[in-house]
């Protein structure tokens, strides 16, 4: 899951990026409103964590512009302003959730997972697909009740497929999910991780659509 973090304070920005990275999220961090808009225009994100008081362009303005353009990217506002009117204003401007600083890193991650879950139309925190169970909170994967050891990148890829079973992802889209800025994408790496996942989860868990991309088909889904 790729997250855009918009935070002007370097210490908080670095801390959140590191913390969310440890929770398995790929985080791009920008420090002002204009940079945030540029990032949204050029990349696809699953969620945005937005600080309200930002240089250049205020967080709420970024949010309003985004919603006016019809973009339904889940947005979580993190701000030091905790007065009720400020919170109401933030939520009414189109935010999906509101977190007051100082916040707990675990709570931030949990709220992000909840927003992602709601966006995928699920209420069950556990992802189940074709006999595989994935817990985004603990990042534990079991197949037929047996725990599996997956690397961070393999987990990110698995999360993408299990979040939207049956959806086809291009190689470029999958690369977006795997790498934040600065992570150099080597050619063939997506294929390498898909190969590894197939080995651990069964060859038919991920299928190739020639010339289009990859999908994890619903059809043979087990009913557990």
């Amino acid at each position, binding site marked *: 899951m790729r997250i855009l973090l918009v935070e002007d*304070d370097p*210490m*908080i920005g670095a*801390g959140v990026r590191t913390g969310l990275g*440890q929770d398995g999220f790929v985080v791009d961090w920008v420090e002002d409103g204009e940079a945030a808009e540029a990032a949204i225009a050029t990349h696809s994100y699953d969620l945005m964590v937005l600080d309200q008081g930002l240089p250049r362009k205020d967080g709420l303005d970024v949010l309003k512009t985004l919603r006016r353009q019809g973009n339904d990217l889940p947005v979580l506002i993190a701000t030091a302003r905790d007065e009720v009117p400020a919170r109401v204003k933030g939520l009414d401007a189109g935010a999906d959730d509101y977190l007051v600083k*100082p916040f707990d890193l675990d709570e931030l991650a949990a709220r992000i997972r909840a927003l992602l879950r709601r966006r995928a139309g699920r209420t069950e925190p556990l992802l189940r697909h074709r006999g595989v169970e994935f817990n985004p909170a603990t990042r534990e994967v079991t197949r037929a009740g047996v725990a599996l050891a997956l690397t961070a990148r393999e987990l990110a890829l698995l999360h993408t497929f299990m979040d939207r079973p049956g959806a086809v992802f291009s190689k470029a889209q999958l690369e977006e999910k795997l790498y934040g800025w600065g992570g150099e994408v080597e050619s063939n790496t997506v294929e390498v991780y898909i190969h590894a996942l197939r080995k651990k989860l069964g060859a038919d868990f991920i299928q190739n659509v020639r010339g289009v991309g990859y999908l994890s088909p619903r059809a043979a889904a087990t009913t557990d």
Partner: protein
Amino acid sequence: MTSIRKRLLLWLLVTLGTGLAAGGGAVYFAARDTADEMADLHMRQIAGALPSRAFSPISVLSREDAVEEHIVVQIWDRAGRSLYLSDSASNMPPRGPAAFSTVRFGNADWRVYLETVGDNVVQVAQPVSARTAMVARMALRSVWPLFVLTPFLALAVLLTVRRGLDPLGRIAHQVEQRSAESLAPIPTEHTPAEVLSLVAALNRLLDRLGHAFDTQRAFVADAAHELRTPVTALKLQTQLAERATTDAERTAALHALHGGIDRASHLIAQLLDLARQEEASRSRVHEPLRLDELVREAVGERAAHAFELGVDAGVTRADVVELNGDRFALRALAGNLIDNALHYTPRGGRVDVEVVQQGGEVVLAVSDSGPGIAPEHRERVFDRFYRVPGSRTPGSGLGLAIAHGAARAHGAVIGLADNPGGGLRVSVRFRCDGAPVSALQG
């Protein structure tokens, strides 16, 4: 304590009393004179009423009042033989020509009237003491209404004064209802003209107080908000340190934690500087001190930090300058300017501090080789918590506000200019004689 009510009452009652006494006195004396004249007239009437030949004075003198008034009537014939004496105890010789006179006879003064009536000489006499008593009685009779009126007048004065002072009581009540939370202006309807200026002044004071309270409240809210940022960073880094699985991760988190604590401490120190500054601006304890030494110390205290940052910080010129000032405020002034310069100067940069005496002025200047401040932001950077948009380096936005406050408390003017070598030059111009600085120059 002086009381308008008491003073008004005292003066009004004294004036009223004096007026009544004077009026009463005047009336009394006028009435007495009139009564005196009437008594004389009465004596003449008695003499005139006597028949000129055959006499039977009893009919005239039987009137009770004549007896009461101790009037003595004597009648002689032309030859001087006594024909009649109304009171044998007061046998007086006839007195002089026909007229009024006051004579001494026996132990008393007598008012005497002598008249020739036909063939007889009639003398009517009355003791002065009896006449005085009678006259006084009559005069008092005309004065008494004044005495009866006095308590009513005093009561009227009392009520008038109380009523007149009512608006003051109302305003006092209004003022009493004001507090730090409600500083609404006092209504001026039905306020007498004399008190209106006082109420207007009071309302202006309330307005200023309200502004001061608002500023204070906003400051506390801003301060709390600003403290949240470093606290958030601290919390994040603490959690990252807890989560760390490798030594490298833990070291990195702890290092960041130290940075966050330094930042929070710096912010708190600055908030304290501001609070102290406000206290100092009330008490204003200025002492003679050496500005050049104070600045040298401030640079010295920061030398180690500058070295860590890789910034060459030093004093380029320090004239011997003695001025009257608040040591704490000036230390905060120099310290914040130097901290700011160090903060924004990149590694390998330079921070120069100088204290220069020029004629009647002393200039403390701090120049850096940082990014400088664009002219459009130079006005606002002195506002508390204001930070130039897009600043990459973390800061509280208080440093220049503290410096500005300290400069103002010393009648000094603080100015921002481009450093000729690139970067920012902050200069503070003091007047040696303590007078405010006239022109603002870089």
